[in-house]
């Protein structure tokens, strides 16, 4: 599959402090790619270097095979983490202005904006000053600015931050539409349910270094063999050389020790004649993986 975004051996230093170290990943055409990491892990810095807002200290960051320049800007929709609007301008003026800067003809920008405002329930606010809108309404306008040029590539930094559940659902629906139209979407988020719902692949960085990278299901499976859920009758036999356990009534979560397979644990429990209603190898949620990696100091 064609690579749309390519980050190769990228590092970024601020003075003596290295905030991103030797980072490499690719985003493929038409996929939804999640960019994960704790606060301060270097995600926003990576995106800013990708978009030419900062200069990388080392490595190469390419979009469609070339460094970011203003000619690519018309094909990209970027929603930054630090986002805002010209509060003293009116809604339609702001949308048309940004649309024009992105290369959209003025009439087309006006028509698109009116359709968008209709869809997000803000048709009556078109002539309203932005400062009179609520923060949720302003976020919808920011999304409009991101999408107005019908971008092939969407780069979104915490796009649903601060949105209520209804607007979050509307936002996700619009992203799905963009994806259905073949757009490539890279988004930074801390909301793992969003990732599990729409992302095809992900990267997770910690302290500026890559910790996870691959398809969502595969990443979960990599961590999956580490826990087994068991429903049982009687007493769970101990086996300190095989697993650690946490028991809650007739349910237990077993965490295999290093080098111990789930088959060996099953054989052990069967040999001890434990009556089991369920023996399930469970992949941990992305939320759990995120917390695990964020808490590790490696």
């Amino acid at each position, binding site marked *: 599959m064609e690579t749309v975004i390519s980050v190769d051996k990228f590092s970024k230093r601020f003075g003596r402090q290295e905030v991103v170290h030797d980072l490499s990943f690719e985003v493929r055409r038409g996929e939804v790619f999640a960019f994960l990491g704790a606060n301060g892990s270097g995600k926003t810095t990576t995106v800013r270097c990708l978009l030419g807002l900062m200069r990388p200290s080392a490595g190469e960051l390419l979009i469609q095979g070339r460094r970011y320049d*203003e000619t690519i800007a018309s094909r990209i929709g*970027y929603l930054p983490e630090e986002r805002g609007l010209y509060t003293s301008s009116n809604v339609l003026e702001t949308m048309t202005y940004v649309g024009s800067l992105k290369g959209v003809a003025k009439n087309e920008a006006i028509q698109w904006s009116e359709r968008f405002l209709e869809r997000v329930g803000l048709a009556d606010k078109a002539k309203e000053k932005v400062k009179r809108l609520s923060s949720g309404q302003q976020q919808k306008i920011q999304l409009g600015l991101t999408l107005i040029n019908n971008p092939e590539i969407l780069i979104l930094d915490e796009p649903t931050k601060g949105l209520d559940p209804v607007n979050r659902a509307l936002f996700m629906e619009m992203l799905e539409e963009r994806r259905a139209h073949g757009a490539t979407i890279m988004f930074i988020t801390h909301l793992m349910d969003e990732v599990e719902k729409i992302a095809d692949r992900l990267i997770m960085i910690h302290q500026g270094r890559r910790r996870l990278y691959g398809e969502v299901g595969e990443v979960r499976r990599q961590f999956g063999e580490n826990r087994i859920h068991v429903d049982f009758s009687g007493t769970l036999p101990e086996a300190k050389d095989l697993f650690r356990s946490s028991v809650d009534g007739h349910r237990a979560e077993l965490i295999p020790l290093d080098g111990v397979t789930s088959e060996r644990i099953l054989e052990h429990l069967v040999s001890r004649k434990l009556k089991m209603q369920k023996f399930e190898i469970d992949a941990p949620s992305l939320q759990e993986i995120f917390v695990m990696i964020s808490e590790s100091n490696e």
Partner: protein
Amino acid sequence: MNKILLIAKREYLKIVRSKSFWAIVLLLPIFYIVIGTLVSATAQSVEKKIEEEAKEAKRIVLVDSAGVLRDSLFTESLERIDDADRARQLVVSGEVDAAIVYPPTLASDQGIAVYAQDTGLLSRDRFSELARTLLKQSILQNIESQEQRELFNSEIAVSTTIYDEGEEVQQGIEVFLIPIVSVVLYFLLVILSASFMLASVSEEKENRMIETMLSIVPARQLVWGKILGLTGVAITQLLTLIAFGIVAYNTTTNLIEFQINWAEVPIGFWQIILAVFYIFTGFLFISSVMVGVGSAMPNHREAQSFSSLFIILSIFPIYLATPLIADPNGPVAVITSYFPFTSALVLLFRTSIGAIAGWESALGIAAMLVYVAVGLWAAHRLFALGAMEVSKKLSFNFLLKHFRSK
């Protein structure tokens, strides 16, 4: 270029559509005229008040140790006594409004002594004029010739003709018209435009729109778009002020007898070209400083207070007006001609009065171009850096650490 024009158009319309812009452009000259009139009227009314207070005095004692005062000048309220100490005591005890003591020898360093009741800060000197007038009139009465006395009392006109190396020097208001207009334009255009530029950059940062904008348009284009838009604003200001000036001139010449002989206004081609150059480069330099300040500060309020330092530096030549006018080629003029913040205004002034050599003009042009180039370069850097630090003030350490990277 298209993007620069789009940005320029937005910046221009945003400012020109605002009521505050028109309020500033139209009301500022009116404000200055009103303030000037008020100051003049206040001074006149204070003088009048002092005069009246002096006239209202019921009893003034005079001690004429020199024997110069003529009896014919003594009115009802004036009374002659001999003892200076007693005269002072009469004032202390409140029996008289004032005592004027003339020393035995007026030609010596010892002057006239006035003792008076306190009637307020401004009128403490109210009897000085009376003391002088009595003395002058008394001396005058000693002059025998009626013709001489009339001449002494009349307003004698004085006309002066000045030559410089054999050439008569023009001294009418016409000679100073170009320097005055140039300096006033510099102030109104450069200083006002600077404040608009500061507000524009602060708005991008304060509204947190800057990162979105920089992902669409390079910092250089965004800054140039703003400068172009503000140039349009400056031209609009200029045209408005010219129209305002024409109306004001026509109105005032009908009301007061004030005429400018346009034929005597010395307008040189290169003088005008250089004036435009210095105003424009001064505008670019101050704009670049304002871009830098707006980028480095987290909000407009902080940016405004920090920028006042640079505004004061830019108008500093006003405080040096006396040495600059007295000696336009002196050390003060030369030093301030090459200091970045004062350069444009001083060179503009010196050029408009024709007090600058050709080689110095060339040096001035080069200096201004260098200042503008360095200013714009630093402004772009600060703009790109400040964009990513929306809620922070850029510290010196931060700048040191990041200035080399984008």
